[in-house]
């Protein structure tokens, strides 16, 4: 182990691995350690033995579930918006190379008493029973306004200033009622709760655009998912960091972290290394974070696809808060063996939401009712921590915990924020030169064929 590093990163969760990769690419000398013997921390995907070890220490997985190694179960369920920030980060770093993705088959939204497909095209929208006839008409007007809206061109603004007008006011102007508002705010803008209604509408417009752009990329749904589970993502970014000289050590219990003479000293297994600064997940600095919420997540193994989901191999189901009398939405993410996350014939449905009561598991009942018979269920409640300070003073830059959102936008925003706090400059996402070169070659080939 070398004595001094620019940066020591503690924890190999996705955020820490992206930061580690970006810092190594910037030429920083990085030492990256994790107390666990595997990559990913909270954002790991576990095999069956690991899963039982974590949730039911001492119990063995029943043989009916199949081989342990066929399983890669995400601890934090999320899907990747295919035009979102995580894809931009993959393209910026060329980490796409190390991963294979599948398009998620469909997106559903619960509207009492059943789930319905979120329309993926104009024709699906027209035939959808999600909206009544008159609602379709006002929605159509609203969506053409969204489609034509150009921030730069006041003629398209119809007298509305989206930076000051609330989304509630915009909905009112188009005469949209509760159901379509619920659909737009929760199934398209992917808001967890209704706080957005009283905020400037511009963010909702950006979110709609992100959804629509993501949907346009592959058609079936706006999401993609990596083969072998989300735990591949931190590993891939860790590889990026290693390629640019980052040093990796797992199974390293951290005994002491002190700040001395403007350096951070980290001690593990009796050895001390120093760094100019430290990046870590909240679990390494319990004194420097505050608890701001809790998330309940439940991993359910099923023997059949989720009822009414068109037998899809994968899908997302959103239960908007209002439909079940809650403050925040419940999400269900379903994946299965073609994604190499479970044995053949099994399905994995992961249900999650923000905790609102003293009985978190009961809050998920509406979701359990939708997914059919559950073979095995592993429920956990995670604390949601945020750093107390931004880290510039004590050179200790901490990420926030993973939230209950169903995608990686907030995860990436936290990474971008960390990057700027650490390096004092914003992260500008570009397209990696390798990819541009490949694109060029492909174009030349195509032209050559014509």
């Amino acid at each position, binding site marked *: 182990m070398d004595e001094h590093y620019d940066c020591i990163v503690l924890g190999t969760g996705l955020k820490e691995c992206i930061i580690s990769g970006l810092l190594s690419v910037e030429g920083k000398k990085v030492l990256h350690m994790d107390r666990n013997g595997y*990559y990913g921390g909270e954002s790991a995907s576990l095999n069956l033995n690991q899963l039982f070890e974590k949730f039911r220490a001492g119990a063995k997985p029943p043989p009916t579930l199949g081989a342990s190694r066929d399983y890669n179960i995400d601890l934090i369920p999320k899907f990747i918006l*295919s*035009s979102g920030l995580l*894809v*931009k980060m*993959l*393209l910026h770093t060329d980490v*796409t*190379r*190390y991963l*294979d*993705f*599948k*398009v998620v088959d469909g997106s559903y939204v619960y509207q009492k008493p059943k789930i319905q497909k*979120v*329309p*993926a*095209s*104009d024709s*699906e*929208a027209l035939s959808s029973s999600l909206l009544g006839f008159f609602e*379709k008409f006002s*929605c*159509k007007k609203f*969506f*053409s306004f*969204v*489609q034509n809206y*150009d921030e730069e061109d006041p003629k398209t603004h119809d007298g509305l200033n989206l930076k000051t007008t609330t989304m509630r006011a915009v909905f009112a102007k188009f005469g949209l009622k509760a159901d379509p508002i619920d659909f737009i705010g929760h199934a*398209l803008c992917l808001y967890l709760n209704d706080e957005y209604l009283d905020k400037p509408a511009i963010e909702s417009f950006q979110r*709609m*655009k992100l959804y*629509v*752009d993501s*949907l*346009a*990329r*592959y058609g079936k749904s706006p999401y*993609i998912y990596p*083969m*072998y589970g989300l735990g*591949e993502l931190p*590993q*891939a970014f*860790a*590889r990026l960091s*290693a*390629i*640019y*000289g980052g*040093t*990796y*050590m*797992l199974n390293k219990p951290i005994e002491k972290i002190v700040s001395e003479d403007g350096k951070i000293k980290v001690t593990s297994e009796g050895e001390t290394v120093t760094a100019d600064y430290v990046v870590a997940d909240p679990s390494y600095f319990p004194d420097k974070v505050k608890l701001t919420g809790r998330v309940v997540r439940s991993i359910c193994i099923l023997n059949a696809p989720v009822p009414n989901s068109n037998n899809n191999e994968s899908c997302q189901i959103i239960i908007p808060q209002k439909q079940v009398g809650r403050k925040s939405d419940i999400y269900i993410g379903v994946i299965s063996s073609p994604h*190499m996350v479970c044995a053949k014939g099994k399905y994995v449905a992961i249900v999650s939401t923000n905790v609102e009561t003293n009985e978190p598991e009961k809050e998920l009942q509406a979701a359990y009712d939708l997914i059919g018979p559950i073979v095995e269920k592993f429920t956990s409640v995670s604390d949601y921590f945020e750093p107390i300070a931004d880290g510039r003073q004590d050179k200790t830059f901490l990420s926030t915990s993973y939230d209950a959102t169903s995608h990686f936008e907030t995860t990436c925003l936290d990474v971008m924020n960390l990057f700027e706090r650490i390096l004092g400059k914003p992260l500008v996402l570009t*397209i990696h*030169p*390798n*990819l541009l070169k490949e*694109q060029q070659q492909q174009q030349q080939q195509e032209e050559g064929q014509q």
Partner: protein
Amino acid sequence: MNNNNKIFQFKLVLLGEAAVGKSSLVLRFVRGHFLDYQESTIGAAFLAQTVCLNDTTVKFEIWDTAGQERYHTLAPMYYRGAQAAIVVYDIRSQDSFERAIKWVKELQRQGSPNIVIALAGNKLDLAAKRKVETAEAQQYAEENGLLFMETSAKTAQNVNELFVEIAKKLPKTPNPRPGSGRLPIPPIENNNQRKKPCCSN
């Protein structure tokens, strides 16, 4: 190359103790051929090279360890879907040979079921200081169904031959890689070129 020539792509990973010459083998192999189509070599972490057999072309997508073998932190992702592996040792070091045997076991346990494994005794140019006898390695390879060659990245001896042997042994099935027909992730356009809200015309 005739028109019927089929191209098969395979993921090949390198394993072995630090400093046995894994990267040198790859660089020797990749730079000796097809110089007009040379991929980026940053960190030598991801390289591609093709081998032409009689009626097929095999394209190797080669993964180097990026130093993650040093503290035994190679991620499971590294082995995933690998159809071929070269396990390298230094013929001057019995330790590196024993480490190579451990890697072979690891691959048999963790790797794809039909993975083609080649054992390479590298630094043949330094045979005067040899510690691992050819016969010993040869026997181990035979007993375990591995390809075996002694190589020198420095003089290029047996380097191409090794990759050609691997290429020959790989099954040329139409879909060599599980999940192949990889989902393309094209660059994202920045502006509003593609506005198509789902519920409007």
